[in-house]
């Protein structure tokens, strides 16, 4: 049994995250739900770091646990809702059917996840010449990748062209860059259009949220008609 420290930490954090997610759904006070969801997201950040997606791990904690969930918590503190204990405890036939159907969905997903083989039953191209490097937990950084590469624009341009034109060029080029550099090489060459579109989407979201927040309301009187 070759359990490494990384494996033990995976099981530990996995257990904590599943328990926290269950508590998110079943705890009656919404603020505790929000705080537990922040815990789940931080643990997912740890998993991303374990999977050598360093930038995405940090972005997960910054965006989700540090901003989105803070927003949820602040909104719920302002709402000051009474505890709604009756919400979760109603046992009607509909609730049982819902739980059973979710159980079926869970079974299908878990079964599919457990049965998938190394080559994804032919759908994923894995470099079978060498097993993927085992994930290293928080005690060591990505020691195999040098931290700074050439930034000569001419050299990078050749590689960028090759990545955009040859989708499988990834594997050889990508072994010598850090994760952030790999992400940015692909993001700003092949997916640049979506990236720009995303900024427009964020602008739309900002305008929408501000417009919605300025709606009239208030605790003093109810206005008829706008």
């Amino acid at each position: 049994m070759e359990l490494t420290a990384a494996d033990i930490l995976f099981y530990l954090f996995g257990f904590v995250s599943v328990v926290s997610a269950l508590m998110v759904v079943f705890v009656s006070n919404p603020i505790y739900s929000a705080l537990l969801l922040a815990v789940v997201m931080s643990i997912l950040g740890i998993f991303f770091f374990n999977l050598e997606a360093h930038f995405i791990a940090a972005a997960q904690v910054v965006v989700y646990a540090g901003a989105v969930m803070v927003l949820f918590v602040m909104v719920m503190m302002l709402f000051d809702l009474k505890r709604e204990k009756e919400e979760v405890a109603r046992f009607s036939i509909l609730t049982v059917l819902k739980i059973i159907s979710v159980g079926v969905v869970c079974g299908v997903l878990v079964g599919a996840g457990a049965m998938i083989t190394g080559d994804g039953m032919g759908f994923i191209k894995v470099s079978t010449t060498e097993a993927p490097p085992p994930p290293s937990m928080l005690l060591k950084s990505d020691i195999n990748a040098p931290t700074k590469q050439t930034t000569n624009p001419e050299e990078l341009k050749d590689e960028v062209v090759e990545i955009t034109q040859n989708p499988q060029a990834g594997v050889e080029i990508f072994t010598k860059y850090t994760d952030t550099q790999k992400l940015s090489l692909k993001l700003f060459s092949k997916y640049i259009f979506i990236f720009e579109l995303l900024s427009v989407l964020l602008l739309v979201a900002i305008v929408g949220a501000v417009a919605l927040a300025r709606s009239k309301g208030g605790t003093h009187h109810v206005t008829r008609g706008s």
Partner: protein
Amino acid sequence: MGTTWLEIIINTVKIAAIFVIVVSTVPLLVWVERRGPAFMQNRLGPNRVGPLGLLQLAADAIKFIFKEEFIPTKAEKILYFMAPGLTLLPAALTFAAIPLSTPINILGYTFKLQIADLNIGLIYIFAVASLGVYGILAAGWSSGNKYAMLGALRASSQMISYEIAMGLSVVGVLMMYQTFSLNQMITEQFGYFSFLWQGSAVELKFLPNWGVFFQPLAFILFLTATFAETNRLPFDLPEGEAELVAGFHTEYGGFKFNMFFMGEYGHMITSAALITTLFFGGYALPFISPEQVREFWIQNGHTLLGFTGLSMPDIASVLTTITHLVVFLAKTGFWLFFFIWVRWTLPRFRYDQLMDLGWKTLLPWSLVNLALTTALMYFARIVK
């Protein structure tokens, strides 16, 4: 590939040591905060307990421990107990990624004076610092007190606004050094002020190679933003003593209040260390690279540590590390003194002035800095 037992033990010792150092620097800081500004204000600070009043903090700590632990009736008990820990945790975690000195090579082992040499060191720090909001929100809400809640909301919205300015102002530094790793950034700050202009190297011998000379605007913005992040004056409104009693920690007494204090000072220590690392060369001496320091110690080291019987390179490495640790502590100490100095000098911002500063001044200027850096790097071909 599990890590060996030796590495696990060394890492545990490092974590414990650095945590203890951070926590025990807090009393020293509070002492400086009470004596230093007292001299600035032409009065004496506490000077009766112990020599120069140094034991005043020990007396205060003991007093806090023995105070009555009360819980308000309307408080949410679980969050009320967890909130001080939630404030202390990010402050301690952030310090993990900051390199304190050069790595030591002793007896064939190399270990770094840094708990986690992440190659995403900088965003890790921002990620963990952004978790500091939860402690404040939990403290304010769980107290069951409307004024505490108001203070918590003000504090958290201030922290979130200035996180953005803080992150954006550093992007210029990132673009210049082209790495997130703090160790790499310090390595790039050795020696003399030099950069590549259109491919040819330019070097100015009268300036050190520090980040502040390359990115002065980013430095000013980052300094202001960290003042606001740590809730220090002049951005002190969440703890505004005249208005909200004590803000979000109104209903806390005794040891829990002490933990809030430690969290705030821990955050301050981390911010000072980060300013040193990003803009002032970290543990490096101004014009001398660690290699030269090591050469110096190889020639002169055995007079100091010859009695231990280690080999020459080992002694030189240990002495280099100690030198650089002292340099790092001196620089961080200066910035901590700067934090305290500003606190006792400037008046407090009003809340709307504070938010205006964060969104309408710091954020656009960070973008200007970003645009300027991009223009210089891409069009004028000035790179590091």
